[in-house]
């Protein structure tokens, strides 16, 4: 048997686990590991400029590929810098393994240099964590960490490795377990047959059904099966922010995103429906609005792999614990075998009503934003990018108004093309996530929608883009204000703009992009928008930073009215639903 050091055990285990890319940043406690990286060629390390970016890049890579994202950081500040990215992945159930260096085990607890209790600090935001206590355990722990991260409800797993565990002078046998089993962990994949038959009956008896999909529907064959079921029954489908792309957005059965900034037709259909089939969604507060007013007439079928997500906020009438893939496969079978069938007259009437809503206030029947001024509207920017990229780009975002506009107007027809921080709402996510997406698919066009606020939270990664030649396209929707906060200040604080303006302190983004070796293009006039975007996307092998000045006064609508039902919305600055 081959003898090797802890550092080499780790790298060999990562290789055997199929890890191709490791996003990271070196430091004292991780130096033995970095030396092991230097001495091998199987696992490629990507040097970012800040540990937060390492986690977001791994996250972007995971969202596009469906594989586990891998991160390596040092102890102390390296580990704590990774925390925001771990929390982001945790909230959105993204599979990730974060390996952190730690001070030598003899020094733990002594407040040693760069010591942080990473196990403790990360505990509430990880699926699980390990601290290596014996180097020979490293391959098994790595195997378990990847298994946990990817299976069941995915999530981040931390592996904390004290420096002495990777000491090059101590050698151990390498044993990589073929399979690991964890006696306390058996995710329930297959749904309960009786519940599934009940769900099929309820679904077929409904007169006003809506399918509501979330991020859980993106996994495995979820999108395929969702599409099959929805089209077979000809029922309307809405999606959460996280579920976009599970069903083709440009299809007529898609009624738009629901929730706080969901479409009028989606939110209204939910509110009026008599049956909701929730697939891998978790009824979070950005969807439900006031819980006591939530969809009063609807019977709720809730499919989720995480039992704790079911009946957490909204009680399900028919709960089904299982993977979306397995449960939908069985549900489609049950629907096929059922003697019942949907009441076609009722369904037609339901579609007629929904189509009236679409016509009246829908985002896609005509432009709902004012285009009478010279100012470029942020919505137009997203529409233009969609057109120029033919809707095929991998799209990451930061957080704020631009994120919501991107969700509303970049119609996603494929899963794993939409990379956004939904649960945690992490500003600074966009650029590093776009880098991860570009690594995942080097041939793809990768767009990062951002704003002049968010982009400055991880802008140092423009340097990483230079080093690895990652030709991402940054669409900076520049309204010279922290737009979403400003919108809330307009709506709730009589336009008192507390700390949402920069007083002419913004950098010249064009020069900044150029300083990193990239191309910067400034757009201020509407008539230039398409032309400049064409120019941008024609530069296949360059990073292009598009600095696009837009109307500062634009708000994101629809917007649910707080403490009301799903269907109570502001439709513009002056109009509201009854």
């Amino acid at each position, binding site marked *: 048997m081959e003898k090797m050091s802890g550092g080499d055990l780790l790298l060999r285990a990562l290789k055997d686990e199929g890890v191709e890319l490791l996003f990271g940043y070196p430091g004292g406690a991780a130096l033995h590991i970095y030396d092991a990286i230097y001495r091998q060629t199987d696992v490629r390390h990507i040097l970012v400029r800040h540990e937060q970016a390492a986690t977001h890049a791994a996250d972007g890579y995971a969202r596009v590929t469906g594989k586990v994202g891998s991160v390596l950081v040092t102890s102390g500040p390296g580990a704590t810098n990774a925390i925001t990215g771990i929390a982001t992945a945790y909230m959105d159930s993204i599979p990730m393994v974060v390996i952190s260096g730690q001070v030598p085990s003899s020094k733990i607890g002594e407040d040693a240099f760069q010591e942080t209790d990473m196990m403790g600090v990360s505990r509430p935001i990880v699926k699980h964590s390990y601290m290596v206590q014996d180097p020979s355990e490293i391959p098994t722990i790595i195997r378990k960490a990847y298994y946990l991260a990817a299976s069941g409800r995915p999530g981040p797993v931390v592996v904390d490795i004290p420096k002495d565990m990777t000491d090059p002078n101590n050698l151990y046998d390498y044993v990589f377990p073929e399979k690991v089993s964890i006696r*306390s*962990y058996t995710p329930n994949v297959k749904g309960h047959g009786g519940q599934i038959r009940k769900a099929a009956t309820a679904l077929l008896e409904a007169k006003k059904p809506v399918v509501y999909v979330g991020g859980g529907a993106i996994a495995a064959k979820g999108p395929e099966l969702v599409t099959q079921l929805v089209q077979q029954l000809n029922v309307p489908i809405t999606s959460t922010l996280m579920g976009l792309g599970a069903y083709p957005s440009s299809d007529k059965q898609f009624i738009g995103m629901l929730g706080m900034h969901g479409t009028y037709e989606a939110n209204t259909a939910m509110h009026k429906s008599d049956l909701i089939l929730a697939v891998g969604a978790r009824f979070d507060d950005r969807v439900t609005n006031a819980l006591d007013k939530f969809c009063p007439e609807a019977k709720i079928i809730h499919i989720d792999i995480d039992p*704790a997500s079911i009946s957490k906020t909204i009680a399900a009438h028919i709960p089904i614990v299982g993977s979306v893939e397995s449960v939908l496969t069985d549900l489609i079978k049950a629907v096929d075998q059922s003697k019942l069938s949907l009441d076609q007259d009722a369904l037609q009437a339901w579609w007629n009503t929904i189509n009236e809503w679409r016509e009246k206030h829908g985002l896609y029947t005509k432009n709902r934003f004012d285009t009478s001024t010279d100012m470029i509207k942020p919505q137009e920017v997203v529409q233009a990018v969609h057109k120029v990229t033919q809707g095929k780009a991998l799209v990451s975002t930061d957080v704020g108004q631009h994120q919501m506009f991107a969700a509303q107007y970049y119609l996603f027809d494929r899963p794993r093309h939409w990379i956004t921080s939904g649960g945690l709402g992490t500003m600074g996510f966009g650029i590093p996530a776009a880098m991860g997406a570009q690594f995942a698919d080097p041939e793809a066009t990768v767009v990062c929608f951002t704003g002049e606020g968010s982009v400055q939270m991880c802008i140092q990664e423009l340097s990483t883009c230079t080093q690895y030649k990652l030709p991402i396209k940054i669409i900076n929707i520049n309204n010279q204000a922290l737009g979403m906060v400003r919108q809330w200040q307009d709506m709730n604080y009589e336009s008192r703009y507390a700390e949402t303006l920069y007083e002419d302190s913004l950098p010249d983004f064009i020069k900044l992009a150029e300083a990193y070796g990239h191309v910067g293009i400034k757009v201020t006039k509407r008539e230039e928008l398409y032309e400049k975007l064409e120019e941008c996307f024609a530069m296949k092998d360059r990073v292009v930073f598009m600095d696009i000045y837009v109307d500062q006064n634009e708000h994101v609508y629809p917007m649910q009215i707080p403490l009301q039902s799903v269907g109570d919305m502001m439709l513009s600055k002056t109009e509201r639903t009854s």
Partner: protein
Amino acid sequence: MNKRIISILMENDPGALSRVVGLFSQRGYNIESLNVAPTEDDTISRLTLTTLGNDQKIEQITKNLNKIIDVIKLIELSESAYVERELMMIKVKAVGSLREEIKRSVDIFRGQIIDVTPNIYTIQLVGDNEKLTAFIRAVGEAVVLEVVRTGISGISRGDKVLSL
């Protein structure tokens, strides 16, 4: 809001307890009492936890506890017939005529005096939560110097067994 007792089998690992306790503070659940010790299999600890909540809350608590990787198995004991016990050691002032009176109370409650000085009795008492509280009331809070309670431990009645 009823008192609920949850029994948990979990890995006897250093991080396991902090994950369980952390869950309660993270999700805003409260812990009335908690005790933990290894079982006959020293890789497994058994933890008994008392909390307050309605059915919906207890369901969320048990689901979230089950999600903790170190938690192997759990039951809500109070869902069916069970026996609960708690051990209390209590130090009381015992002087003059009180000495005889306290001794009588100890006998009535089937406790034992496990340490004696001219002025003090240290008493051991086993029972359910209410019995221990009743004893404190019986001797009178004025004489109580120190109370140590282990928190509730419990086990199902009859054939029902919580094991791997």
